């Protein structure tokens, strides 16, 4: 879907347009759209910037809004937005007030401080009494100015048993620490908003992008998502629309269904408004007569399928039994089923219930899948957090006069590769790269174990002892058939030496300052296969301007187009040779990856990790 090429914006208020968007330009329209249950909203006039902010729809999306500040900043909007999220996300019943307060505080701050550049901090106590009137007037003035047209993106997504709401604005961002400092003054009339939001979100509130994006999570009523649907619950809870231009037919169907336990059946007499009604009622099923005055059933069906919010509603057509062509066309269009008139009550009930049951079961499976995906995403974030932070890398680079560059890409959500750099003292630091067998959850859990073990090692200056200790522990812990190729090195910056151990890892590559390349053997038994393995250290001389490369075997074993041959050592060595010797670690890693990805057959079949370390010339 290319939003930029489709005419999203028209002057028609609240148009349900392409890609299932509700579009409008006023606060009243925004409130109507929120109350009607729309899931994707685009409100305002700065259209090109707003469409760039609008993310592609994802299965985990519950609500996505891009709207200008001037339309979002109002108590009514905060309240209706909270109610909309609460209803869609099935939050815990007591959390709606909490949600409204959090949204009020965060949206107000995102708009006031991020978009409009206002601060509520008052140094002048004489103005304290008038703070609210003054501040409100400022906000009102700026919202009505061009500043108020800065768009804000609000996203609500399901993540397992939690729902995450994020607010991202394209304004200035704001200084969270300054806000928290003001809030510490208990006598102040202002500055408590962020503290309140943080407290109510129970610590699950995070900032990123220099304060331009804020996210928080709330728990859902996950029990309802985990409950397997039953036929009686389906009869009670399904919302069915009956659409026929003949009142007698509508009445007959209502009676049949209600007499058989379907409690939420509604007739639609103004069938031209079917799409709107289906959205507002969140219908689960539509019984739709074919032969009606314009628009007929087929046209209405096409309309339903063209709108994201209604495209997934199953439709059972009602047709004349003496007209088989109607039935054929209905199935060709993709209808769920067709019921012929005159109506057989038992047939109507059976078909309606069966289709609702199948849909509910599919939805249940989809929910469980969504929960699992959410859990995996959280686990992925956790795994990524094991790696050295950018701040740590910068600190080490400064301390040791080195450049450290890395690349990490799992072939599945969770990966079995691991790398780290560890400062030991003011002259020495260590690096490690491991590749556990398999990928996915088990391999990822093993990387966490290795990370924890390394943190507790006390002989980091001695690679052989460290590796032997890790091997002994992993040999006891890893399952049968599991092991890890591993390289662990200690660089002495003063002595300009590398002391390392190799446990079946790909050979290190060392590019010297004069351009020559040396391959450092990492041959040895992988970690975890046998506890009693003699591990011997190896050494190499380094010099300022040299670069070491460690990598996982995906670099040499991935197939490349058009021959489906992998690089193996030869091509890697050739590519490595071609990179200028003074490039530095980052440029070397970037160049290698550029060449790699130019022809690599994707998606990767194995996790890919590169770690480059160059000794800088003082």
């Amino acid at each position, binding site marked *: 879907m290319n939003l930029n090429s489709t005419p999203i914006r028209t002057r028609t208020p609240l148009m349900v347009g392409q890609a299932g968007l509700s579009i409008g330009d006023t606060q009243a329209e925004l409130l109507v759209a929120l109350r009607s249950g729309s899931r994707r909203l685009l409100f305002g006039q700065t259209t090109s910037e707003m469409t760039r902010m609008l993310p592609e729809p994802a299965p985990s999306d519950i609500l996505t809004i891009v709207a200008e500040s001037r339309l979002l900043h109002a108590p009514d909007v905060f309240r209706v937005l909270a109610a909309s999220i609460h209803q869609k996300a099935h939050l815990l019943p007591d959390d709606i007030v909490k949600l409204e*307060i959090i949204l*009020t505080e965060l949206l107000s701050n995102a708009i006031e401080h991020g978009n409009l550049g206002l601060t509520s901090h008052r140094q002048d106590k004489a103005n304290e009494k008038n703070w609210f009137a003054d501040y409100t007037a400022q906000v009102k003035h700026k919202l009505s100015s061009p500043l108020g047209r800065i768009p804000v993106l609000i996203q609500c997504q399901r993540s397992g048993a939690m729902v995450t709401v994020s607010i991202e604005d394209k304004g200035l961002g704001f200084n969270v620490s300054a806000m928290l400092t003001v809030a510490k003054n208990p006598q102040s009339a202002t500055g408590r908003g962020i503290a309140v939001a943080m407290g109510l979100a129970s610590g699950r509130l995070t900032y990123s992008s220099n304060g331009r994006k804020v996210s928080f999570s709330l728990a859902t009523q996950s029990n309802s998502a985990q409950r397997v649907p039953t036929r009686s619950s389906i009869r009670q809870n399904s919302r069915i629309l009956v659409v026929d231009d003949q009142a007698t037919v509508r009445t007959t169907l209502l009676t049949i269904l209600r007499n058989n336990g379907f409690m939420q059946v509604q007739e639609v007499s103004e069938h031209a408004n079917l799409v709107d009604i289906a959205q507002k009622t969140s219908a689960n099923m539509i019984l739709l007569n074919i032969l009606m005055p314009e628009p007929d059933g087929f046209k209405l069906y096409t309309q339903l399928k063209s709108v994201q919010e209604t495209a997934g509603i199953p439709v059972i057509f009602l047709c004349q039994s003496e007209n088989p062509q109607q039935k054929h066309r209905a199935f060709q269009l993709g209808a769920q089923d067709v019921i012929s008139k005159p109506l057989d009550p038992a047939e109507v009930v059976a078909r309606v219930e069966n289709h609702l049951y199948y849909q509910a079961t599919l939805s249940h499976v989809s929910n469980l899948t969504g929960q699992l995906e959410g859990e995996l995403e959280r686990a992925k974030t956790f795994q990524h957090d094991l790696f050295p932070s950018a701040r740590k890398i910068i600190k080490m680079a400064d301390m040791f006069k080195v450049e450290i560059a890395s690349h990490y890409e799992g072939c599945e959500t969770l990966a079995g590769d691991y790398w780290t750099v560890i400062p030991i003292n003011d002259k020495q630091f260590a690096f490690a790269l491991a590749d556990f067998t398999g990928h996915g959850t088990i391999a990822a859990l093993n990387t966490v174990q290795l990370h924890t073990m390394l943190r507790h090692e006390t002989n980091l200056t001695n690679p052989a002892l460290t590796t032997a200790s890790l091997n002994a522990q992993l040999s006891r812990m890893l399952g049968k058939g599991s092991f890890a190729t591993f390289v662990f090195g200690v660089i002495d910056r003063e002595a300009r030496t590398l002391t390392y151990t190799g446990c079946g890892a790909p050979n290190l590559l060392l590019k010297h300052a004069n351009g020559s390349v040396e391959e450092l053997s990492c041959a040895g038994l992988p970690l975890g296969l046998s506890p009693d393995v003699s591990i011997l250290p190896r050494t190499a001389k380094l010099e300022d301007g040299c670069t070491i490369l460690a990598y996982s075997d995906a670099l040499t074993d991935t197939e490349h187009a058009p021959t489906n041959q992998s690089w193996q050592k030869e091509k890697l060595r050739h590519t490595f040779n071609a990179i200028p010797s003074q490039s530095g670690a980052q440029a070397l890693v970037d160049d290698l990856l550029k060449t790699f990805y130019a022809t690599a057959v994707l998606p990767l079949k194995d996790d890919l990790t590169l770690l480059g370390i160059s000794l800088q010339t003082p």
Partner: protein
Amino acid sequence: MSFIHTQVASQHTRLTMPSRLDSTQAQPFRSAIQQVLAGGLKKLELDCLHLEYIDSTGLGLLTLARGEAQVVGGTVSLTNIRWPGTVADVLMLVHFDSLFPMTFNEAPGSHTGGPIPTQSQ
């Protein structure tokens, strides 16, 4: 529902709070406070039994009311705060128990709400 004045005793007024204290209630609240203060208040009790929603604007309004009462030598207390409840959570989060005398109204059957907060010293 708006703010309801009840004269409890001489110079002791109870102001019953509506269900929400936010920016929409700022002007009515300020007017109600000023009206009470003009009557020679010494003790202002804000009855929070019906209060279900309070945000940072509402917190600021309470702080202002306290400041204005202090100018005339009066005090402001918060009474009948629903427990458990989000309003109670918010007030405790920002340590309003150090600014206002507070009393709580425990909802029936709320056994899972934990102990009612005690006033911090």
